[in-house]
């Protein structure tokens, strides 16, 4: 009965199309659409066949989503719960920082670039200041190098703590959030003590650091370092052998080392896959060559390895800070080049040259001779590079940051395709993207 109706309709269609001059494409209109003996997935009286693509669902996650770690939008093609394709859409927090920097004197650029990767602000500052110092060919004093290393490693700890808290929150271990932020507040107290502000401190200047550390700082930092390893033990005790956490992260999102290198991924993601590449060891700068620390390297490269690598990095950071504090040399904390560095304030009332230098530096800023340079350091997420084009004036002609999260995001598709949505969330947590750095 249904077949007869089908045949009638097909014949009708053919007649209409022939009238209009369009040849029908059906070879044998009377052949059954579903072969006898075939495994029927749908009832046979539905006309036509469903295309395979119609079984797929494309959903949009974000930009507002509790688990997207910022405003990341993911367009995910699903078959059921399985992820077949993934397209990240970024740009929702694009702030035009690089364009704004072209308008400002070099020392005014520092607060701008700090706010790119907003969890690694000391690293952003170091990348920019390091580039400008190399363009100017000035050496920074040893005390400044050690102070920079101390603050950068504290910032790495801080970034990893925030990562651990929010990642555990995404995967379901909600209490970790409070524990990690408890330590994070202690680190921010230290930043407030030395630099005056908790986040975005503008502490590094071209030539060194802005101010020496105050009197109680070393004691407070030592207390913190003495406490921290036991806290990391506590975090590991909560998560390391937690069955739910293991089930959600073991074997999830592994990408091969070669593929990660092709995609330009650096940082803990690459080290978790087994590649021992860390710019602090391979191209050391500042005081890293004098300090003794190890680089944790994973084996498989799945989410669990990434977690372990970052937690181990936290321990190494504590060791680095301790060594740097023990070896902190006395001396000036900023270079003595009056052309680029503000003179000390007590000289302003006695020395005319100091006053003139101060005036010129504050109003116009220092001029950097023409040239361009790319300099990169190891941030908490990978290789953070800064490219500055100087044209001889007091303002940079181009500032560009090679942000690690931007390139790491290209690996996200490889990590998630073939897994479930729950694995996508775990992958995103372990990828540690910071949208401020991605979008700049």
């Amino acid at each position, binding site marked *: 009965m249904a077949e007869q109706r089908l045949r009638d309709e097909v014949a009708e269609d053919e007649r209409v199309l022939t009238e209009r001059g369009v040849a029908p494409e059906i070879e044998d209109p009377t052949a059954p659409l579903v072969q006898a003996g075939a495994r029927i997935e749908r009832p046979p009286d539905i006309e036509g066949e469903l295309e395979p693509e119609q079984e797929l669902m494309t959903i949009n996650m974000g930009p507002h989503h509790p688990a997207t770690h910022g405003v990341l939008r993911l367009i995910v093609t699903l078959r059921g719960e399985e992820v077949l394709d993934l397209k990240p859409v970024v740009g929702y927090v694009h702030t035009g920082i690089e*364009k704004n920097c072209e308008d400002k004197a070099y020392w005014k650029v520092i607060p701008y670039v700090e706010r790119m990767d907003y969890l690694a602000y000391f690293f952003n500052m170091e990348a920019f200041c390091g580039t400008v110092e*190399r363009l100017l060919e000035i050496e920074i004093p040893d005390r400044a190098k050690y102070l920079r290393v101390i603050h950068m490693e504290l910032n790495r700890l801080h970034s990893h703590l925030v990562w651990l808290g929010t990642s555990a929150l995404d995967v379901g271990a909600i209490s970790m959030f409070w524990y990690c932020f408890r330590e994070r507040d202690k680190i921010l107290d230290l930043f407030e003590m030395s630099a005056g502000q908790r986040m975005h401190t503008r502490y590094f200047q071209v030539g060194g650091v802005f101010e020496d550390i105050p009197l109680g700082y070393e004691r407070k930092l030592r207390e913190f370092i003495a406490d921290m390893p036991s806290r990391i033990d506590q975090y590991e005790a909560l998560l390391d052998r937690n069955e739910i956490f293991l089930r959600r992260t073991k074997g999830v999102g592994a990408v091969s080392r070669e593929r990660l290198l092709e995609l330009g991924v650096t940082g803990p993601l690459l080290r978790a896959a087994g590649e021992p590449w860390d710019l602090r060891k391979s191209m050391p700068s500042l005081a890293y060559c004098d300090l003794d620390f190890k680089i944790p390297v994973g084996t498989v490269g799945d989410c669990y390895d990434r977690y372990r690598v970052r937690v181990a990095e936290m321990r190494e950071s504590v060791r680095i800070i301790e060594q740097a504090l023990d070896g902190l040399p006395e001396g000036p904390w900023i270079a003595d080049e009056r052309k680029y560095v503000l003179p000390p304030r007590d000289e302003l009332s006695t020395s005319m040259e100091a006053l003139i230098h101060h005036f010129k530096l504050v109003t116009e800023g220092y001029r950097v001779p023409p040239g361009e340079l790319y300099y990169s350091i190891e941030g908490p997420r990978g290789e953070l590079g800064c490219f500055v084009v100087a044209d001889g004036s007091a303002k940079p002609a181009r500032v560009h940051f090679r942000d690690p999260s931007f390139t790491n995001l290209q690996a996200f598709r490889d990590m998630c395709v073939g897994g479930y949505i729950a694995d996508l969330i775990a992958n995103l947590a372990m990828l540690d993207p910071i949208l401020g750095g991605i979008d700049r």
Partner: protein
Amino acid sequence: MAKPGAVVPMPDAPGLELIAQEINAAQPGAVTETALENDHATLIVDPAHVLAALRWLRDTEGQRYTFLSSLHAADYLPATPRFAVHYELLSRDRTERLNVKALLADPAAGSPNGHRVARASAPEPRTPGSEAEDVRVDGEAVPLPTIDSCVELFPTAEFQEREAYDMFGITFAGHPDLRRILMPEDYVGWPQRRDFPVGGEPVLFTHNEIETPRWFE
């Protein structure tokens, strides 16, 4: 190989010259200049041969610059050629960095420099309103500077080339998916070009209130 301190490890001047000669032997006219300043080793290449140069650097034994750290563009506006695409290469085995710079002229400024004009190879517009080129008042599309895309050589370049396209309007021929990445899809203009204004709105004080005074009431 890696010297601690302020020096970035890179090939020294004679090494750089050797590399330039070898690339030119393999592909004549590829490398036009070498530069070594501020501890930054640069090979300036002709954009038409940039893929050949990159492939040579990546595949040759003894060079093996297999990691593309960064691909970024710059606009040197009063100078010509105006645009440059920088390829920051890294050889992880020898921990050495090398910069490859391809200078592109702006075809809209009418100064031919041996580069292809964008019109033939610009990507098709996706939806009306998101044309790949700036549309002028008289309706003619402005040509864009073009260079070959190195996504087959270095897959990491995918997002970075999209960013260079978004910010400067440089089209990469052969890129699988060249569309805006940071700005909204239908944005018109290339924000980080030097002649694009910084933007923002004039800050409203009482002396320049645009509406009636105390408009907020």
